[in-house]
């Protein structure tokens, strides 16, 4: 891809904003529009912007393709782990109230929902980025 100063500068500026916004969407999901999935995709979109601006290989070197898989596994582990914690606390799967009453902390379920959303977000981000880089990947040449 040709060097393009405008695209690179603009994306260098806007990527952090997109990422902060994505985090806001994930964390704010329980009370407003958004949630783990949307935030995760928005986060992935920031990487897609980087793919387009800086080419696939440069970004992948920094991100690490293996790490993407690890991220997705961590995300699912958070989600399933909280689910299993609920089982251990004597409730049904993902019954947050069970943990809340077992630990004895009020309003814990809000944080648990946030944690689950975070897990979903991480997984979605990693999976989306790896799908995109898979489809784009063509012997180092980017579209």
């Amino acid at each position, binding site marked *: 891809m040709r060097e393009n100063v405008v695209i690179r500068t603009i994306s260098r500026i806007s990527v952090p904003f997109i990422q902060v916004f994505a985090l806001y969407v994930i964390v704010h999901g329980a*009370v*407003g*529009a958004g*949630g783990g*999935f949307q935030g995760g995709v928005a986060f992935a979109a920031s990487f897609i912007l980087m793919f387009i601006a800086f080419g696939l290989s440069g970004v992948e070197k920094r991100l690490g393709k293996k790490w993407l898989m690890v991220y997705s596994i961590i995300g699912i582990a958070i989600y399933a782990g909280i689910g299993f914690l609920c089982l251990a606390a004597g409730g049904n799967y993902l019954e947050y109230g069970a943990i809340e009453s077992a630990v004895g902390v009020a309003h814990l379920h809000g944080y648990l929902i946030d944690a689950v959303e975070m897990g979903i977000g991480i997984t979605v981000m990693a999976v989306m980025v790896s*799908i995109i880089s*898979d*489809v784009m990947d063509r012997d180092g040449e980017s579209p």
Partner: protein
Amino acid sequence: MEAVLEAFLSHYNYGMAIILMMIGLYALIAKQNLVKKLIGLNIFQTAIFLFYISFADVEGGIAPIYLPEGMEAIYVNPLPHVLILTAIVVGVSVTAVGLSLIVRIYEEYGVIDEAGLLKMVKRR
């Protein structure tokens, strides 16, 4: 006349959704180009989503967002929204799988339209 207008105003969403569905299905079945087929698939799916969102909508309702204490409002039905979120995820995964299959087919046969593909498959 009034009644006709009334019926039209309360149902045009569904009519449009059905038209979009038909456009999508037509592309899915009649178009030769494989990428066009997937575009048709996308249109077909979004039309179904439109159908769901249309019946979730309530006259004078507001978006299902948590309001501060003490405020009252009629919410639109949030359940179809949640269902459609899931369906959108499914849709994008199907699109991704389909496109990567098309890329593989192109690498293997060098064509992405159905007639040419049929010829190439027969020849091998």
